[in-house]
């Protein structure tokens, strides 16, 4: 069951590499959130009410509903719903991402610390590096944000992989930060009307 979910997560990553429309990205992020929700739900043996609420908020509400919706609105507003200008051709991204996934499998196999749960760890590492890769190869603000969210998902998965929980307060704070960071990013995207398109090539004036 869990393996299936994680594999699905991996599939979303591969899909991210080749997706060509903003909407797809957005919905993919949402799907990832959903997957994460299921994973956590299955994962949680000791179901104390606070944690449940927290997880529900964190995954279902924020990752699946609020943020995608918010970004969707932005896309509509900014007319960002255009096909993504891929800097590198899709098949290369495809190979790279699959290489990343392969590499992370290898890594987690090599490490296989009984402390961690290998499949989560794999997924997490894969997500983090895929996110970074996405940011590096894309040149649009939205896609950068998608990359960021992917990394966040990876981190979330990583925290699952580790298993030992942080205190509730800390968790809340972390959650709050992630949430607000996305919001503020969104706000600033909204502000970027100073620039004609949302290409980051526009943002190259600050240099020596």
């Amino acid at each position, binding site marked *: 069951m869990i393996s299936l979910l994680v594999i699905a997560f991996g599939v979303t990553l591969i899909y991210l590499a080749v997706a060509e429309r903003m909407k797809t990205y957005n919905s993919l992020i949402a799907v990832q959130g959903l997957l994460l929700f299921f994973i956590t739900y299955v994962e949680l043996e000791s179901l104390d009410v606070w944690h449940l609420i927290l997880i529900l908020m964190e995954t279902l509400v924020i990752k699946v509903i609020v943020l995608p919706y918010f970004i969707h609105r932005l896309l509509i507003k900014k007319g960002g719903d255009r096909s993504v200008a891929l800097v590198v051709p899709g098949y290369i991204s495809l190979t790279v991402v699959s290489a990343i996934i392969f590499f992370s499998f290898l890594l987690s196999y090599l490490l296989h610390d009984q402390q961690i749960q290998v499949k989560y760890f794999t997924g997490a590492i894969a997500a983090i590096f895929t996110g970074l890769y996405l940011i590096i190869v894309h040149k649009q*603000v939205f896609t950068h944000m998608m990359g960021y969210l992917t990394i966040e998902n990876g981190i979330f998965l*990583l925290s699952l992989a580790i298993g*030992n929980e942080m205190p509730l307060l800390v968790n809340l704070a972390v959650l709050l930060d992630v949430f607000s960071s996305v919001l503020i990013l969104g706000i600033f995207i909204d502000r970027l009307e100073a620039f004609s398109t949302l290409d980051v090539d526009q943002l190259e004036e600050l240099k020596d």
Partner: protein
Amino acid sequence: MTEIYFIISIILIVTLFIARVTVISHALVFIYIGLLGWLCVKEWLLLDQPVEGLLHADALGVLFLFVTLIITFFSTIHYIIYAQKRNQGVRAIAIHNGSFVIFVTAISGVFLSTHIGLLWAFLEASTLSGAALIYHDRDRLALEATWKYLFVSSIGVTLGFAGIMFLSIAAHNTPNDIGSLIAAAPLMNIGWIKTSFIFVLTGFSVKMGVVPLFTIDIDAKDSSPSPIGAMFSGPLMSVGFMAIYRFYQIYSHTSILPWMNNLLLFTGVLSLFLAAVFILKTNNYKRMLAYSSMEHAGLILVAFSTGVTGYLVAILHLTIHAFAKAGLFFEIGQVHRVFSSKIMEQCGGYFKISPIGSITLLAGLLAIVAFPPSGLFMTEFMLFKSLMISGEWWIVFIVMFLLCFFVYAMVRNFFTLIFIDNPNAKIIAKVNPLESVPPLFLIGTVLVVGVMRPEFIIDLINRAILVLPH
């Protein structure tokens, strides 16, 4: 006890965002500073108490809190001048003051938190509030800088979080508060903590402004109002240092200590080199100051990497540098206002416009390029000594060699600004000599520290580094 501080400051923040009267808004900020002062003193008095709860500052935290307090105070004053002279709207001021208080609160939170996760949360909070501060001027460049800062440092801090995750992998089920982590350190898996430290260093370099993610830090200091620049290169650098230091503190009880030192040395020298490259290239006074901050951050890492003898040097250097750089940022802020430009080709002949301001700049230059009697000269001498003791004499020469570039660039550009009349320079505004007094005071303290040993600071530092292996 400390919770009260946070509660009150949250209340203040809310009121600040609501309050739409300039005077009240500024007054509230000063109230907040009073609160911060109370916190500093309290923490200082409670130093020897055993740690309880998630919020408790150790000696280093107290030191940095004091630094933050002083620089916050001065940059508030300068922000008031800034807002007056550019007759900012009430709303802008309210937003700025609000996010400024969040910023400082987050910073103080970093110094206070004894839990790694909480520390991370405050770090991210400082990023977010910092974004609002950078965006103050609301022009194209500010927007660009803000976006870059926000994005890259979010990524960086996230990487840092990954580092934390790896730490807790290594730490098994021990709770992630520093005390117990230090206790558990010797049992940790080397591979994990090395990975963790790499991620942490990469991630939090964004705050400290060193390689690899130094770039946006420069942009931020450049495009934000100069009081904020002061905050960024003083307290915020301490935040970055603190974040890295916490992990160093934990791992230093494991066998990877020499590895960490080498890594820090590598990073430090690399930062020095790149800073030297860019300070030669740049034609913008604020960027120049930013690069010199990067240089000093690099020096701090180098010093820290020399182990036992270096810890004191590094932290002392950080502290003194905070004051000197703040003073310079304030004074450059005035220059910026006078010529309404920070580009070298459009400034000049400042000595004729404001002699005392020029004296301040000269003194600041003295302080920042570590000519005696600057406190930084002392720390640099001790740095070289500790490098010699640790037998890395070739590093000494590399560092000295690179430092010459900073001296050259800074001295050339500042003297051009002060003495050479520039036909392209249009004098937009006059400056009130009194405005140069606060920076002169800050820089003066740096020069005094160069002559008289700052016992209070050194004592605090010595207490702080007791936890590190000797």
